[in-house]
């Protein structure tokens, strides 16, 4: 809470110096799960974005607060806070970028103790223009995760990645990347550490002109200090968006992943499977009533195959809302 207040004060103080944008939204809907009862869901969301330009860099600060309520027999309320500070600038024949991201999640259920989940990320990257239409992106990042409950679980993640991107005709770009993650997992009721590496190549295809399309495919191999099993994960992500008419826009988002073989030798709190087992397909339609006011409807289907390979959770969600922007 103290960090939140500090960030809010900081944003308010610096707001006078830069370009300020904000967004408020309210939505209601239905969450239908196969494994449990359907629930009514209400969500509010507020975001403030401040941009400031210096002669040597651009600074961007964002704070987002999302409280939500789910009308289940146990009544669940959640508060999510996200803060981001990012600076970008030019250096030689490229752009540099550094960021700090902070996510705090607070879950409160009437029957049990509240749960805190935190994640912080600190990173730096440089995109070098190596020729007409060719770029090389190199980035390094440190992430800290904390699952603040009993027993607690903490993870340190060090990531290095590089991408070579080639601009193709018709506003498209092809990217070839390689990523290496080194992780350290601390669990309260386990002595020592679980360390390991996860690495692999990726390919992405991006188009941005009359419509937006991002498609990526990654393959990762896991090397754990605790298990000889070498897990492989294939991960597909797809985003598409376009204006159907001048005021109506549509977006589609799909996530799909598959991990094999199922890990059974490592205790659950020590496992590292950085890609979620949840597969999402989501559609959103948005209608701009005016430049600052819009209405939207969205619906999605999720299918969650748990790491045991047998348990499947699935459900659908339908939401309708309105938003104000500046």
């Amino acid at each position, binding site marked *: 809470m103290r960090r939140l207040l500090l960030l809010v004060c900081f944003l308010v103080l610096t707001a006078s110096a830069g370009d300020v944008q904000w967004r408020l939204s309210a939505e209601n809907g239905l*969450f239908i799960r196969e*494994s*449990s009862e359907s629930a009514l869901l209400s*969500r509010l969301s507020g975001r403030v974005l401040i941009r400031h330009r210096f002669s040597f860099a*651009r600074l*961007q600060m964002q704070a*987002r607060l999302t409280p*939500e309520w789910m009308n289940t027999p146990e009544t669940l309320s*959640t508060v*999510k806070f*996200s803060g981001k500070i*990012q600076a970008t600038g*030019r250096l030689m024949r490229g*752009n540099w*970028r550094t960021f700090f*991201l902070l996510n705090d999640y607070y*879950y409160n259920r009437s*029957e*049990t*103790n509240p*749960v805190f*989940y935190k*994640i912080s990320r600190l990173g730096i990257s440089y*995109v070098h*223009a190596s*020729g007409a*239409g060719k*770029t090389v992106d190199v980035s390094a990042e440190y*992430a800290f*995760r904390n699952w603040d409950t009993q*027993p607690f679980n903490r*993870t340190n993640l060090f990531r290095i990645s590089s991408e070579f991107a080639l601009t193709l005709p018709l506003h498209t770009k092809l990217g070839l990347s390689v990523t290496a993650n080194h992780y350290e997992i601390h669990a309260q*009721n*386990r002595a020592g550490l679980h360390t390991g590496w996860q690495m692999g190549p990726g390919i992405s295809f991006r188009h*941005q*002109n*009359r*419509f*937006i399309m991002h498609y990526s495919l990654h393959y990762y191999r896991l090397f754990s200090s605790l298990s000889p099993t070498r897990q492989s994960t294939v991960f597909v*992500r797809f985003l598409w*968006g376009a*204006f159907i008419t001048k005021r109506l826009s549509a*977006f589609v988002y799909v*996530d799909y992943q598959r991990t094999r073989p199922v890990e059974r030798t490592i*205790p*659950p*709190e020590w496992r590292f*499977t*950085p*890609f*979620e087992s*949840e597969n*999402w397909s*989501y559609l959103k339609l948005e209608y701009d009533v005016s430049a600052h006011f819009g209405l939207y409807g*969205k619906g*999605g289907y999720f299918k969650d195959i748990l*790491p*045991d390979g047998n348990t499947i959770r699935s*459900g659908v*969600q339908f939401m309708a809302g309105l938003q104000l922007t500046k």
Partner: protein
Amino acid sequence: MKYLILFLILSVSLWGQQVNKQEAQFETLQKQILHTEQQFQKAQQQLNNYLSGTDSLKKARAGADVLTRRTAQAYEFAKTVESINSRLRRLKNQGRTLRSRLYRTYSVQIDSLNKELSTHPNDKTRKQLFSAMTKRLSVSPVAESLHFNPAYIGQIDSTVLKEPLGRELAQSYLAQADSSLSREIDQLQKKEREMQQIISLRAKAADFVEEMDDTRMTSFEPIATKATTTDANAYSDDAERIGTAKDLANYQSETYFLLMHALEPGASINEDSSQMLEYPELLQRLSQTRRFLQQYQKQIQRKLQSIRKP
């Protein structure tokens, strides 16, 4: 007070001299570039001729001594070509720097003259404005795509043109410039509209990805609560879910972050060898150029009307 006025007069006078000096430098540099380009073409041609002559001698099975001498000579020619080329590159770089400096100087002049015109409209200031605009257009990157020479436009003066033929030619040239500007402005407007649409679409897509970040957390609501009570050694489905929940949270932030990086306005879009511009910056430049061309077109139309008047 009188010292302040004196200081201002002195500053304006020095600034004026500085501008004239820069203009003279730019003109000299342009001449040097032209001359060096000619030298480069000539040296390149000589080298090509020499190389083709050596090829012919090789085919005619000339002696080894002759071929060695010619190869050494060709190497000297190639060194000369490279040296001229590097001088040309240096001059062009200097030209670019000076061009952008002049562009900024003229922009300041135009702003101040526009302010003056809005408070005290008069012909003298209007002429000065037109002259500054013409100069700025001459050093602007857009000048290359225009089908007229702004310097010629600047020289056309309806009060001096008395002969019907001269007036007719000037009128025709101005009309041509007017239509060329209209085409250019149309193109810029079209690009602006496209750019605005892309910016809006990217912002909406970024919002959508941000919303997805929230949506995911909802779906693991039962998992989060289980984590408070589960025995860590249990290998039940619930225990499996805890692992999933932690990893899910890790991932969701990753998805959000990677996509946001690609969608946010800060992401680079034009990674050619010279510069990496961002969409909002590019849009701003397009709008500025379009507004400037529209203003310049009005001045040309005014000039055209004054020539058409008997």
